[in-house]
């Protein structure tokens, strides 16, 4: 198992109200697995940041990764 910090932003916070949250996941877990696990609609996931750097849904998590997931923001 590995430990990660997951933070969901804006509307996505409703899927994990006490985010940011430290959790353990199994080796080989990718970001898409997290999205599925928390029931987040894939079309609402626009940006994924791992340790402050943009990554894709297919990114395989490593121990102590900080994961941030953002919905699309377009208002003015």
């Amino acid at each position, binding site marked *: 198992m590995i430990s990660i910090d997951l933070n969901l932003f804006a509307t996505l916070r409703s899927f994990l109200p006490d985010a940011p949250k430290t959790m353990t996941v199994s080796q080989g877990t990718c970001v898409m697995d997290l999205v599925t696990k928390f029931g987040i609609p894939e079309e609402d996931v626009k*940006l994924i940041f791992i340790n402050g750097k943009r990554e894709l849904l297919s990114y395989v998590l490593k121990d102590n990764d900080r994961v941030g997931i953002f919905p699309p923001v377009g*208002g*003015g």
Partner: protein
Amino acid sequence: MKTPVLPRYARNFQSISLEEQERLASARVCVVGLGGLGGGVVEMLARIGVGSLDLVDGDCFDETNLNRQLFSSEKDLGVPKAHVARKRVGAINSTVNVNVFNTFLNRRNAQEIMGHAQVVVDCLDSISHRFLLQELAQTRNIPLVSGAIAGTAGQVTVIYPGDPGFKLIYGDPYDNKSSGIEEQLGNLAHCALLVASLQSSEVIKVLLGRGEVLQNRLLVCDLMTNSFEVMQLV
């Protein structure tokens, strides 16, 4: 232009040098969208002393703008935003050259509207129009300072010609709804003006060529959790 010695800029010094103030006075910036973000950006650029502003919006103010849009007021409901913006800039700083366009930017009018600017500021409220604006700015070799808001969340980035830009933020331009989560969360005054401040700061840094610019990076903030982070896009 020799206006920077005016006492109105006394409090800009020493954060901005006289030479830099002169550079701002000779600068020309195009602000696209004069709503929640655009009103704040125009107000700040006029006050700091950007010499020429090209201001674009085809909308008129309505009652739903009053909660956040700096240039909206009860007496100006129904009045074109571009006309109110011209009046406001004139009242703040009559040394600023103002060109207003009471229309929406498109491929046909883009050269006339933004072709003279050193920086374009994206204060639009739709994702699809942001992709068009990026294309229009990049084909003219003009840096684009972009801001977007939804509820208490906001983001700012700077896109130079040749940068991947919005596709790293929103994905495929043909696979996007025109709006984001602002449809659910609305837009709040304090968040709009915060992001407008961050955009204004990026404009000034680009014009002066100093400081850390958010090129290929995205500043994301959420006022509900007081989180501010700068993310690396590439």
